[in-house]
């Protein structure tokens, strides 16, 4: 009886669980779009999002202020104004919620409204490009991925990607928000840079830009001056002394740190190239070609030159890190943090808000890295009939109003400029010079030119500090910085193996050959001895003879 009761109870527990599972597929969608993106790489709605922050009065900590009755205080926003609200209502078919809607929900509304088809986005996230690649290799099906530059090239080279339809790049169709809003600079990079080094890793037809940036040093200007860094450049990694040794971080992944080590090794060459370009001896294209060649050099000779440099870097740095560097810099453990520009903006914001500390960002004069993440479609989207929806998703994210939301949430720079340069308003809103009191009025301001990104007269007035070394400089770099940033290609399969071997040699300690031999012999010796003791009792041959006068008793 007891047994039957317990089985009955177990059954009762199972039933609601089944209900939950079936509940997921209760609302039938006509199309399911599987999107696989980085963690925290899309506006997820709620507090701290662009729309929420724009419509609520916030305190110093970014929390919404409450009035006496416990209600949030709403304010008028410059960007999320009546026009924006009208656009939203027109696009999604529902009025804009002040609580900050999530982009994915909005997409589902927008898609159904415009194409008359119910769509469901199945959204999942990854932590590294390699994780994403493994998932793909294991046969998981996705319709849209957001890998980084080199991974896009790798996937394209391996024939795992589907090209965007030609109609996607048709500027005449106004629903093609991507091509109509993407920054001409980014689009040109995609078209010309693909295959620049002569390798067949062309990616422009496979990818649509999402976020991009540079790499450089975030540093504490109270300890390390900008003049000093201009002088040192990449050498900061190997400079000895209290302020550098053990006070600088590098990235814990082979590609970024190999790139940095190339910078250290070939700094002189890089600087002379820059000079030759400035003197007019080299055209911009020739310069970029040379720069890209140096920063993508994986020949054996170069690896041999870079290896001792990497060892020196390892000795000199505080840590290899992926995300602890920001905190280490803010709380003063290190003075310099080699970082992606988006992280640099985050670190500067954090230092300012929490520690009242002002950090700066610096891109080495010899040249640095231009990186990007882009949307690509794996093979099979056509067969599954999701290609159109995937392209629509990219187009939806490329509407300037949505690009702002994502850029605000992520903190990185969107590849979108806006057909009417809407993103310039956003940059102006973030960094425009608007003195509110006398102290701020005294600050020096400059006319900051972003025409290179927007492809037309685009100037904002900004504080000089912002434009030359702080968030604005990191998020929307000046043209001369972009001129010296090269894309890091996929190394190719064979070179990747060699670079990874190099990385493991650098990361791990290698003992001398004799030490390894001695250790191996000792271990084998101990093992044999133990085997002897263990088996000795069981094998007759090893069995010791009884002492004189004793005899063995069989069990």
């Amino acid at each position, binding site marked *: 009886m007891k*047994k*039957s009761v317990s*089985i009955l109870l177990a059954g009762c527990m199972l039933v609601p669980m089944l209900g939950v599972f079936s509940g997921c597929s209760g609302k039938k969608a006509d199309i399911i779009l599987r999107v696989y993106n980085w963690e925290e790489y899309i506006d997820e709605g709620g507090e701290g999002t662009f729309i929420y922050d724009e419509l609520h009065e916030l305190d110093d900590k970014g929390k919404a202020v409450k009035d006496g009755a416990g209600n949030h205080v709403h304010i008028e926003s410059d960007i999320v104004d009546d026009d924006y609200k009208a656009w939203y209502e027109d696009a999604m078919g529902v009025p804009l919620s002040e609580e900050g809607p999530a982009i994915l929900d909005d997409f589902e509304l927008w898609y159904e409204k415009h194409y008359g088809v119910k769509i469901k986005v199945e959204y999942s996230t990854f932590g*590294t490009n*390699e*994780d994403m*690649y*493994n998932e793909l290799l294991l046969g998981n099906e996705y319709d849209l991925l957001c890998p980084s530059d080199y991974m896009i090239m790798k996937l394209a080279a*391996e*024939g*795992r990607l589907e090209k965007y339809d030609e109609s996607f790049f048709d500027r005449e169709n106004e629903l093609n928000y991507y091509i109509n809003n993407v920054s001409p600079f980014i689009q040109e990079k995609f078209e010309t840079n693909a295959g620049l080094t002569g390798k067949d890793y062309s990616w422009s037809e496979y990818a649509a830009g999402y976020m991009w940036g540079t790499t450089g040093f975030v540093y504490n200007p109270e300890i390390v001056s900008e003049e000093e860094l201009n002088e040192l450049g990449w050498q900061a990694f190997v400079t000895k002394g209290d302020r550098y*040794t*053990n006070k600088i971080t590098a990235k*814990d992944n082979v590609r970024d740190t190999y790139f940095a080590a190339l910078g250290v090794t070939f700094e002189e060459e890089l600087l002379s190239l820059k000079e030759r370009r400035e003197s007019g001896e080299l055209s911009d294209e020739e310069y970029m070609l040379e720069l890209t060649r140096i920063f993508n050099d994986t020949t054996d000779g170069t690896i041999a030159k870079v290896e001792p440099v990497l060892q020196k870097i*390892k*000795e000199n*740095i*505080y*840590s*290899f*890190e992926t995300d*602890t560097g920001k905190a*280490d810099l803010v*709380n003063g*453990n290190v003075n310099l943090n080699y970082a992606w520009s988006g992280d640099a903006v985050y670190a500067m914001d954090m230092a300012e808000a929490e520690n009242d500390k002002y950090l700066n960002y610096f891109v080495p004069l010899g040249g640095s890295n231009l990186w990007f993440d882009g949307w690509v479609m794996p093979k099979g989207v056509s067969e599954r009939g999701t290609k159109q929806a995937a392209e629509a998703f990219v187009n939806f994210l490329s509407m300037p109003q949505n690009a702002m939301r994502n850029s605000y949430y992520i903190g990185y720079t969107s590849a979108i400029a806006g057909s009417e340069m809407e993103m310039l308003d956003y940059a102006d809103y973030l960094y425009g010079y608007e003195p509110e009191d006398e102290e701020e009025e005294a600050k020096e301001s400059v006319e900051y030119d972003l025409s290179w990104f927007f492809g037309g007269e685009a100037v904002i007035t900004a504080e000089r500090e912002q434009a030359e070394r702080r968030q604005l400089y990191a998020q929307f770099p000046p043209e001369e910085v972009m001129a010296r940033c090269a894309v890091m290609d996929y190394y190719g*399969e064979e070179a*990747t*193996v060699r670079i*990874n*071997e190099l*990385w*493991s*040699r650098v*990361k*791990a*300690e*290698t*003992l001398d*050959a004799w030490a*390894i031999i001695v*250790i*191996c012999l000792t271990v084998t010796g*101990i*093992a044999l001895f*133990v*085997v002897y*003791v*263990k088996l000795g009792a069981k094998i007759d041959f090893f069995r010791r003879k009884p002492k004189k006068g004793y005899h063995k008793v069989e069990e």
Partner: protein
Amino acid sequence: MKLPRFSRKTLGIPYAVFLVFFVIIPMLVIVFYAFTTGVKDPETGAESFSFSFSNFLRFFSDPTKLSTIVYSLVIALVTTVCCLLIAYPVAYILARSRLKKKFVILMLFVLPMWINFVLRVNALREIFNLLSLAPALESLTSANYFKTIFGMVYDFLPFMILPLYTTIMKIDQSLYEASADLGGSALVTFTRVTLPLSMPGIMSGVTMVFLPSMTNYVVSDMLGNAKVTIIGKFIYEYFGNDWHMGSMVALVLLVVVFLSSWLSGGFKADENVRGTNL
């Protein structure tokens, strides 16, 4: 109402299925990957496998990998010894004391286990930052090793205390009395009675600490600033782009671990193993 009778055989089926799918098949997959290389068809992109010893040869001809195995072994060994030296007195005192609330004290030692591991390691990192270990000392590479081992000892200590405590608790009080009756001093009692009888606890504690501390690269990354590399980190990194080599490293580690547990079992008389070893 008549219920079907569950025989031992039928009740065992779920476990057999579990073992097959989550132990045996994955193990075979690792062996398969370790002794094959992938060849990609340049046209279709499809991957085909061919049997090869190249990963094996590459592993054993690479001084870096062998050194890393040695380093990991040493780090694990030091961690285990430290854990044992700290845990044994604690377990001994707790087990033999007449304290009424000794359970509470034991719980306090074990309590950290219930808090998320990454959180604890992060907290430890912050404490080290606060102390900032005298700048001169900090610059030594050995500081990273020190912090890594400290973190591992901190992390694995409960795994050593618990088995030791339960084993020492179970030692019959009358054995101590007998030893004293026969004229054994406190030291002799400890070396001839307590220590041999607590061997099973030591063995299971050692197995529980030694094995994970060879591969726990989260500690070496966070506390050793990723400048300390142990074999687990290699496995992780290889699985980013070369599953075959990654499987080979994992397989070598498996063999090392198997051998060391088997050999350490060989040092003691069989009747002392209460099924706690391996």
